[in-house]
């Protein structure tokens, strides 16, 4: 695999740099807008810290493949290529948002990107992933489903039933556990009898994938690429990406940052921030690349600013939206 890394084209690495930086800046903007009450509501879970997982994983599949996740979904939507304007408009509850302002932060989705949505009931999306993969196999399509899942979510019944069923039917799903060490506040080792989560694959008789360094987009990409190949040819894979959330569980609880023990843990993880890790890969391999990286960062600032402007100028939904789409008419 090491040889592969060295030969990854520059454009690809720069594209990942762009995506990771864009997500980080987008999330920082969401945080700032929330503080100013320009984004409102009780739930918003930022992807900061996780970027390399979403970007690396989605780089390993095609637009015809499928993606589904939980509520920590902004970064997944952006990495899948959903327009940041539509994502920001959804954050602000506007009619131009990905879900017309009816879904909000936790429920982004884009049918045209085969991004089947973010789901706020822990574990609830997992059997949906199984079902989407069933359709793929049923119709003899060559595609795979990537289903992200939190470490905490591996402990409710949805996980067991969905993953087992995918194994029984040999469905093309890559389950990527985004292991950020905690649920809301309960740590993996306090919540899981077997904290080496990827080992559960053995019990389901499915392929045990790797525990990959989730701070390194290249490592994630290569691991997911291999898992995707296996899933396309053979059946489901369970793998883990080890990462860390930077801004607590969500806006509804900020007690996280107040805890000293967690603060020092955060600092350790931030030393291996996805941006730092990729930047150092780039600067080591390519001489004088800094100006290019700076241009990418400025470009990301511009995209985020435009997204905010678009969202703020967009109309709010009205009564007709409130009553629309309860049923298929």
């Amino acid at each position: 695999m090491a040889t592969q890394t060295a030969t990854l084209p520059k454009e690809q690495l720069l594209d990942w740099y762009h995506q990771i930086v864009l997500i980080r800046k987008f999330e920082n903007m969401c945080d700032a807008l929330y503080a100013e009450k320009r984004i409102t509501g009780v739930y918003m879970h930022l992807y900061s810290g996780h970027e390399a997982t979403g970007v690396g994983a989605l780089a390993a599949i095609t637009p015809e493949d499928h993606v589904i996740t939980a509520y920590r979904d902004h970064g997944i939507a952006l990495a899948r290529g959903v327009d940041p304007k539509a994502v920001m408009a959804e954050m602000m509850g506007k009619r131009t948002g990905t879900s017309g302002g009816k879904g909000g932060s936790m429920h982004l989705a884009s049918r045209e990107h085969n991004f089947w949505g973010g789901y706020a009931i822990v574990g609830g999306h997992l059997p949906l992933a199984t079902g989407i993969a069933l359709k793929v196999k049923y119709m003899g399509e060559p595609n795979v489903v990537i289903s992200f899942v939190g470490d905490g979510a591996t402990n409710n019944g949805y996980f067991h039933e969905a993953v087992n069923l995918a194994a029984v039917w040999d469905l093309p799903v890559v389950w990527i556990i985004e292991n950020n060490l905690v649920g809301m506040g309960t740590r993996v080792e306090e919540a899981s009898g077997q904290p080496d989560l990827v080992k559960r694959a053995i019990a389901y008789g499915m392929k045990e994938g790797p525990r990959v360094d989730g701070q390194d987009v290249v490592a994630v990409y290569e691991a997911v690429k291999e898992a995707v190949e296996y899933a396309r040819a053979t059946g489901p894979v369970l793998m883990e990406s080890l990462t860390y959330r930077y801004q607590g569980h969500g806006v509804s609880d900020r007690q996280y940052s107040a805890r000293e023990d967690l603060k020092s843990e955060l600092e350790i993880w931030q030393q291996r921030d996805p941006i730092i890790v990729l930047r150092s890969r780039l600067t080591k391999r390519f001489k004088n690349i800094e100006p290019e990286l700076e241009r990418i960062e400025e470009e990301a600032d511009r995209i985020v600013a435009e997204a905010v402007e678009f969202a703020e100028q967009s109309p709010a939904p009205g009564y007709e939206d409130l009553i629309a789409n309860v049923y298929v008419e």
Partner: protein
Amino acid sequence: MATKNLPMREALRQALREEMQRDERVFIMGEEVGKWHGTHRVTQGLYEEFGARRVRDTPISEMAIAGAAVGAAMAGLRPVAELMTINFAFLSLDAMINHAAKIHYMFNGQFTVPLVYRAATGWGNQATATHSHMPEPIFAHFPGMYVGVPSNAYDAKGMLKAAIRDENPVLFTETIALYPKPSPVPDEEYVLPIGKADIKRQGGDVTIVTYARGVEWSLQAADMLAKEGVEVEIVDMRWLRPLDMEPVFESFKKTNRCVVVEESLPMFSFGSEIAAQLQEAAFDYMDAPIKRVSAMDVPLPYAAEIELMALPNAQKIVDAVRGVL
């Protein structure tokens, strides 16, 4: 009697603490109830006070929380199982309905299931469709489990203590918007009986039947209506099961008019039940059709503007009362 003004979350915490001190079999379990202090901070400090044996953090495992509570209760403990929010109780539904509510009957009284399921509830704050439920009537549909729905700090404390002491399973839901609201709570211990409604305001013109946050909206509406010279009587049911209809009948016989206010959905609802019972028991006293003020019959959307359109409020209650006069 000396009282203190306490927010509902603190009154609930007092109830939990007092019952845990009184009875060693009482324990708490649920997601983030211990070291994280509870998502809505009701259990704050209890882990430090009672330790990990009595305040038990669980994995995110709603089926197991609800089902293990049944087993523990059958075997002699007194679980207070927190479901974080009522939205997640849908994952627990089978254990709650098929087991907690039925075991005493199904095994002909051999077992009792003295547990309390606590859950935060309520619509709003852009929590969106999956996190905006007030589904208590679903649970009250089934015989075998009591359902408590307090409207203020004082009631909440006395009702929760009764729930913990009762031999039957109880679903006890706490409206999130009411957690910070204070009301006078006596320093002395008190327990409020299960299944007893309460008149929150007296009046002779129209009876409002409601519960939980509906009481607050109804009280606001009552003030607005009083300025027009209309006096409403507000019956706070406090429990959906057992459902205490006597005070409703009494009030209705006086006012001959009724508006039901519910934060929940209108179809197959609390409002439907109250209206049906009133027409069966007090048809001869009815001077106007019974009106309901409910949430709109849609899933709740995220955008604040349209979310608020879908929810009840004082003005909608005022309009409904005018409509039956």
